[in-house]
């Protein structure tokens, strides 16, 4: 299978801060890839870099191959055609991403006209179908509603409908459920999975929630302080984590079996982005650290097909996790 999108050695520098460093991953057709990490891990930056949605001051290096073309080198007009066309994006805050003075219907038909040349009655019919597809009841009438007339969950559905208007092959989702209640979050995640299957599109899902990764993603890349620490199929990452940070993250989430017991929390804090330690950036917080970890950043190395870790002590981590 050839990858739909191949990100190679992506680095993003914002002034003195290296926000993303040497990140590589592939997205296969029809899969949900998770980018998971805590604040400052670079997960959202990575996602935005794909569509060149970063601030002007950002210095981006690396290649992002989309069906053989490098998005990083694409002229702006062609990229604009791709944005919201073959590649669409949804954000955490639908209220800030939606235009508050345009009806939801108009925002969908705009995209239909721009990317598919659909206008008039045909566009309105398609727009209603899209709202219906994302589970907005009474879709035809709701085309005339403004974003503020929708609840948070309905706004997120509307934003997904707009994103789907041009029939994207890849949907980028940046913490799409973080601001929502748990039952609504569950509805939106199930909706994304259904749409992925029905429309055979791929999804990159950025999240800080390991539970969402476990329930939604096929593969995952775990980011820390701008770098990929580990990547692999979700069953492997949760069943047999091979990076000390991944194991620490999993152990930080309370489980039913350890109620009212001390969690094996990761001590300390992520490094100051202006003072990244020279070796493995997780070393100062790591329980498996050895002298070898302090001199250079360990590169990602493959453990099995599709499973790679940047941990020098992966064997010890896997023994502990087993």
């Amino acid at each position, binding site marked *: 299978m050839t990858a739909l999108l191949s990100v190679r050695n992506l680095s993003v520098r914002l002034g003195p801060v290296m926000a993303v460093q040497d990140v590589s991953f592939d997205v296969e057709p029809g899969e949900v890839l998770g980018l998971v990490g*805590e*604040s400052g891990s670079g997960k959202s930056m990575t996602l935005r870099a794909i569509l060149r949605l970063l601030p002007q001051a950002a210095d981006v290096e690396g290649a992002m191959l989309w069906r053989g073309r490098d998005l990083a080198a694409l002229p702006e007009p062609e990229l604009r055609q791709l944005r919201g066309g073959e590649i669409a994006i949804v954000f955490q805050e639908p209220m800030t991403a939606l235009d508050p003075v345009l009806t939801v219907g108009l925002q969908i038909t705009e995209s239909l006209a721009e990317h598919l040349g659909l206008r008039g009655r045909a566009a309105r019919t398609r727009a209603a179908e899209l709202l219906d597809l994302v589970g907005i009841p009474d879709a035809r009438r709701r085309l005339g509603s403004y974003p503020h007339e929708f*609840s948070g*969950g*309905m706004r997120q559905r509307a934003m997904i409908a707009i994103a789907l208007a041009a029939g994207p092959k890849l949907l980028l989702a940046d913490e799409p459920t973080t601001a929502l*209640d*748990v*039952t*609504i*979050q*569950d*509805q939106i*995640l*199930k*909706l994304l*999975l*259904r749409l992925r299957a029905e429309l055979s599109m791929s999804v990159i899902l950025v999240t*800080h*929630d*390991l*539970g*969402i990764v*476990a*329930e*939604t993603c096929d593969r995952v890349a775990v980011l820390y302080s701008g770098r990929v620490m580990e990547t692999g199929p*979700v*069953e492997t990452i*949760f*069943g047999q984590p091979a990076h000390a940070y991944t194991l*620490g*993250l*999993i*152990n*930080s*989430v*309370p*489980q*039913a079996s*350890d*109620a*009212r*017991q*001390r*969690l*094996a*929390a*990761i*001590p300390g*804090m992520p490094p100051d982005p202006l003072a990244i330690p020279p070796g493995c950036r997780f070393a100062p917080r790591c329980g498996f650290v050895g002298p070898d970890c302090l001199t250079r950043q360990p590169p990602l190395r493959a453990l099995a097909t599709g499973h790679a870790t940047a941990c020098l002590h992966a064997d010890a981590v896997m023994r502990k996790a087993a």
Partner: protein
Amino acid sequence: MSAAAPLLRADDLARGFAARGIVWSGARPVVRALNGVTLTIARGETLAVVGESGCGKSTLARALVRLIALDAGRIDFAGEDVRALRGDALRRYNRRVQMIFQDPYGSLNPRMTVGEMLGEALRVHRIVPSARIASRVAELLAMVGLAADAASHLPHEFSGGQRQRIAIARALSVEPELLIADEIVSSLDVSIQAQILNLLLELQTRLGLAMLFVSHDLRVVRHLAHRVAVMYLGRVVELGTAESVFDAPMHPYTQALLRAAPGMQPGRRSDKAALAGELPSPLAIPPGCPFHPRCPIAIDVCRVERPAPRVRADGHRAECHLAT
């Protein structure tokens, strides 16, 4: 725990907010944030209050520390009628019951060093003699896992997790008996959240503190709570021990919440949403059981008659016509 008199007892608490503005008025539509809330907290126990936005859980927390006035209901704390407290008695109550908020930055004075802030609390409530204040501040900082030199720094010099430690230290400085914690780990990264959960468990055991822990995160609630109250549209719809509520939930809303919370086992996925529909407008709470429009098992009686609590042998209770 249930045999002794509870530390705090709340009976039938009610509070409405006018839909626009903050002045209560009978003429305007009223959001019933608390619509008859009854619960108890025993000494040394953690009661978690869980629910989605608009269920009234934060209003409840604020009402218990008298940041919000109630329209009706009674709160007893160690035998005293809290709503009637004035003057010194109210100040004493405000020392014995401490609140910690979700955003520690908003609740810490930005111009006071951590040492000044903790020292002020100790001085105002005369917790230790003046000569002992500096050493007590150092003890408090050590207790919450901060370095002693934190005392000379301002709040903005700390990370979110450290600020939450400062807020905890300040709450504990006055030796309270009950801690009211409103979503205090919700905005923290998971690795920092785990550190704060460990700290709370350790302090609670060591100091014998009671805690009302408000959260929307079921994983965190299960980890900390002895007992759990589930709120929906201003009412406690289920209340029981944590084991009982999580392992054998009685109310269909609790059952849906538990199914909706993402688990950590990739193999146990479902492609069906746990609960359809959205929260109804709190301005128009449905008649009968407030949950009936979203309930997958509702029958005719649910649409007209508010369910009386059903109680299991262990005291686990739920407001559902069909609960067993």
